[in-house]
C-alpha cells in the first residue's frame, strides 16, 4: 500500500519445486521433493520485494531475518545467506522442509495477499543443503555457527534431557557460545520426532544426522539410551556438576479414541506404525529385524501431519487402499497444506466429516472394519474452529485390515512421574516461564512439546533457543 510502484509490477508465479512423480514416489521411501537448484533458487529469490517492513519475519517463530537472507541470495551470496539463518535457526535444513510455512512466514509475506508468497521455506532449505554440500566435512563448527568459537572452555555445563528439536536447538546455541553440553536421549538415535516420527520421504534421515554431527563437532556430547527418570534422576545431574538442565522430552504418549475394539489386532497408534518404520527400518525387513506393520486396506484416523505421514507410509509399504477419516473438513485440517496435496496426489483418499465409533473384529480378534459416525460442522468452539456434530443415526462401515490412530498425544510420563516436585499445568504439561522456559525448580528449564503440547518443530526449537539465552544470561557469558 505504501509502495505503489512495486504493486504495479506483475508478480511472477512461484518457482515450482521439483518432485518425484506421484505414482513413482508412492512406492519408495526416497525424498518426495528434490530441492531447488541454484538457478531455481535464484529465480525464486528474485520474487522477493525486499519490503521496507517485512511482515514475513513476524510469522517466523524464531524471527529469522528472512529479508536479509533472501537479499543475499539475490546477490548470489550463499555464505551470507547461511550466516543470517544460522544466527536464528540451528536446523534450517529441517525447518525448510517441515515448517507449516503457510501459517507462518509465508502466510505473512506481502505477496500472499496478491498471489503466491515467496517460497521462504524452500529457499531456507536450499541454503542449508547447498551450504552443507560445499562445506568441508572436517570443519563442522562453521557448518553450525558460521564462526568457529568452539575452542573456548568456559566452565558452564548444561544437560539437555531429550534429543528432539527443542533439546538440540538448546544444545546447539549453548555450545556455539562455548558451553559444555551433554544431551541425554532415551532412544538409540538422536533427533526425537525427526527420526522416529517424520518419515524419510519427507525428511531424509541424513539431513538430521548431518545436523547432529555438526553439533558433535561443536563439542556437544550425546548419550543415547539414557532415560531421564530411569537411568538418572534430574537432581543427580546437578550433583554431577551441571549448572543448568533443559528438559525437552516431547509429548510422545499416544492418545487413543476410547471406542470399542481399539485393542484388536491390526489397530495401531500412528506412533507405533511410524516408529516401526522410521526407527526400526521395518520397510527394509527382513534385512532389518523389526517386523513391518500389516497393510491391506488401511484406515487412518486424524487430520494432522501425523495422519498424513502414516497414510503415506502405509502406501509405501504396499497398502491396497488408504483412507483417511477426519471429523472436520479439509479446511480445518491441521496438516501442512503441501502434505495434504502430496498425499492426495499419491492416491490417499480423504473422507471428511466422519469419526470412528467402533473397530470391529472377527473371531480371531482381527480388525475387519471401522464404523464411522457421519458429522456436520456446527458452531465454532473455543479454538475458533467449527465443532463437528453427529448426524443422528448416520453411521457407515468401512472394511479395513489395518487402522492407524493419529489423534494426538499426551505428555510422556516417565520423567514427570520420577520428578514429582516439578509443577505441571492442568493439562499435565510442564509449567514454564514463556520467556525463559524456566520451571519452578531452580535452574531447570523446559521447552517444546512437553510444555506446549504437540506443536511444531520450529516452535520447539524457538523454546530451546530462548532457554539457551536465559541460561547464558544467568551464568554470565
Amino acid at each position, binding site marked *: 500500500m505504501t509502495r505503489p510502484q512495486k504493486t504495479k509490477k506483475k508478480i511472477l508465479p512461484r518457482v515450482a519445486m521439483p518432485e518425484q512423480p506421484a505414482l513413482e514416489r508412492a512406492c519408495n521411501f526416497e525424498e518426495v521433493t528434490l530441492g531447488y537448484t541454484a538457478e531455481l533458487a535464484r529465480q525464486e529469490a528474485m520474487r522477493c520485494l525486499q519490503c521496507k517492513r517485512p511482515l514475513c519475519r513476524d510469522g517466523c517463530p524464531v524471527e529469522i531475518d528472512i529479508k536479509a537472507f533472501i537479499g543475499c541470495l539475490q546477490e548470489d551470496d550463499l555464505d551470507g545467506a547461511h550466516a543470517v539463518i544460522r544466527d536464528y535457526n540451528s536446523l534450517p535444513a529441517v525447518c525448510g522442509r517441515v515448517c507449516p510455512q503457510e501459517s507462518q512466514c509465508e502466510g505473512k509475506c506481502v505477496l500472499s495477499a496478491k498471489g503466491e508468497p515467496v517460497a521462504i521455506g524452500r529457499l531456507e532449505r536450499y541454503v542449508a543443503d547447498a551450504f552443507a554440500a560445499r562445506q568441508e566435512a572436517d570443519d563442522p563448527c562453521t557448518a553450525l555457527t558460521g564462526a568457529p568459537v568452539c575452542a573456548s572452555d568456559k566452565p558452564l555445563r548444561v544437560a539437555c534431557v531429550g534429543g528432539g528439536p527443542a533439546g538440540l536447538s538448546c544444545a546447539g546455541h549453548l555450545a556455539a557460545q562455548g558451553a559444555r553440553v551433554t544431551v541425554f536421549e532415551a532412544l538409540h538415535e538422536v533427533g526425537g520426532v525427526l527420526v522416529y516420527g517424520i518419515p524419510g520421504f519427507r525428511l531424509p534421515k541424513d539431513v538430521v544426522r548431518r545436523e547432529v554431527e555438526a553439533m558433535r563437532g561443536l563439542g556437544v556430547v550425546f548419550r543415547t539410551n539414557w532415560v531421564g527418570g*530411569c537411568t538418572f534422576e534430574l537432581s543427580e545431574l546437578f550433583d554431577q556438576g551441571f549448572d543448568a538442565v533443559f528438559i525437552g522430552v516431547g509429548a510422545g504418549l499416544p492418545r487413543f479414541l476410547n471406542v470399542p475394539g*481399539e*485393542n484388536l489386532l491390526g489397530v495401531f497408534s500412528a*506412533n507405533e506404525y511410524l516408529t516401526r518404520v522410521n526407527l526400526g527400518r521395518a520397510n527394509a*525387513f*527382513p534385512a532389518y*529385524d*523389526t*517386523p513391518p506393520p500389516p497393510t491391506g486396506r488401511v484406515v487412518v484416523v486424524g487430520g494432522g501431519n501425523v495422519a498424513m505421514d502414516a497414510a503415506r507410509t502405509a502406501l509405501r509399504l504396499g497398502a491396497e487402499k488408504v483412507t483417511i477419516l477426519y471429523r472436520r473438513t479439509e479446511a480445518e485440517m491441521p496438516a501442512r497444506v503441501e502434505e495434504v496435496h502430496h498425499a492426495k496426489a499419491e492416491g490417499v483418499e480423504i473422507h471428511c466429516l466422519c469419526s470412528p465409533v467402533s473397530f470391529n473384529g472377527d473371531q480371531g480378534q482381527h480388525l475387519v472394519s471401522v464404523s464411522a459416525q457421519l458429522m456436520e460442522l456446527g458452531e465454532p468452539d473455543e479454538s475458533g474452529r467449527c465443532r463437528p456434530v453427529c448426524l443422528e443415526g448416520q453411521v457407515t462401515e468401512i472394511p479395513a485390515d489395518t487402522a492407524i490412530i493419529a489423534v494426538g498425544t499426551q505428555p510422556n510420563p516417565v520423567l514427570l512421574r520420577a520428578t514429582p516436585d516439578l509443577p505441571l499445568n492442568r493439562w499435565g504439561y510442564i509449567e514454564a516461564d514463556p520467556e525463559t522456559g524456566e520451571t519452578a525448580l531452580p535452574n531447570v528449564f523446559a521447552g517444546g512439546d512437553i510444555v506446549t503440547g504437540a506443536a511444531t518443530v520450529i516452535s520447539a526449537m524457538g523454546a530451546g533457543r530462548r532457554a539457551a539465552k536465559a541460561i547464558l544470561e544467568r551464568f554470565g557469558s
Partner: protein
Amino acid sequence: MYKIVKKRLLIPGQTSMLQIHAPQIAAKARPGNFVMLRVHEQGERIPLTIADADPEGETITLVFLVVGKTTAHLNTLEQGDEIADVCGPLGRPTEIERKGTVVCVGGGTGVAAMHHIAKGHHRAGNRVIAIVGARSQDLLLFCDELESFCPEVRIATDDGSRGHQGFVTEVLQQLIDDGEDIAEVVAVGPVPMMRAVAGVTKPHGIKTTVSLNSIMVDGIGMCGACRCSVGGETRFACVDGPEFDGHEVDFDELWGRLGQFREQEAQSMELFHQCRCGGDQ
C-alpha cells in the same frame, strides 16, 4: 556399546544367562525392572527383565529363552562381545513392602525375573515361598539360588522328574488348601500359567501380581504397542507396568496381541538359520 562380561548356558541351545557391563543401569535396577536391548544396528529392540543387578560389579544379569531371531542372535554372542544398545532400567519396580508370606510362582524363563522379585521380598523381611515349574527336571532354572534365601522352594514338572508331577497351580492350590496364610502371590511366566494362577487365587481373594510380557517397541511409553486391558482400562505395560493385578488383566487379549507378528517372526528365523547354516556348517 555394552560388553558381555560373562555368559553361561543354562539350558544348552535354549536358555542363557548374560552378565552385561552397564554401570548406570546396575546402580538403579530394582526388582521388576526390565531393559530394552538391540543386539546390533539392524536389530529389533526387545524387552528383557533384569534378573539380577550388581551395582559394585557394575553389571546386570539377563536370562533369556531362545524363541526367535533376536534371542537366537543374542545367544551366538560370547563373553567379550558387545551389544549395541541396552536401555533401562524401565518399567515400574515391584511394590515391595513387609507383609508376611509371599508366594512367588515362576514358569520357564519367567523364573529368572521371579527370582529378582523374590529376593526383593526376602530383603524386605517377607517369608518367601517359591514355586518353580518346568517341563522336566533339566529345564528347571534358579532352584539353587532360590533355595539360598527361601525357606521353601516347591517344584513342579510336567513329567514328574522332580517335585510334584503337574502344574505349578496345583502346588499353589495345595498351599492354600493347607491353610497357608498368604499375603500376596506373584506370578511370572507364560501367559497361560499366569492366567491359571490368577484363576486359583481369585476365589480366595488373595492379592495376585502378574508381570505382563506384551510386545514392546520403544519401552518408554511412546508407541502403545504394549497396551493391554486391565480392569477394563487400556494401560501401557512398559510405563504403567509391567506388573498388574492378575485378577483384572484380560489375558485373552494379551495372548492374541503377542501373536500379531508371528508370520514375519517365522520368516526372520528361517532366514537367520539359512544364513548360519550356510556360513558355519
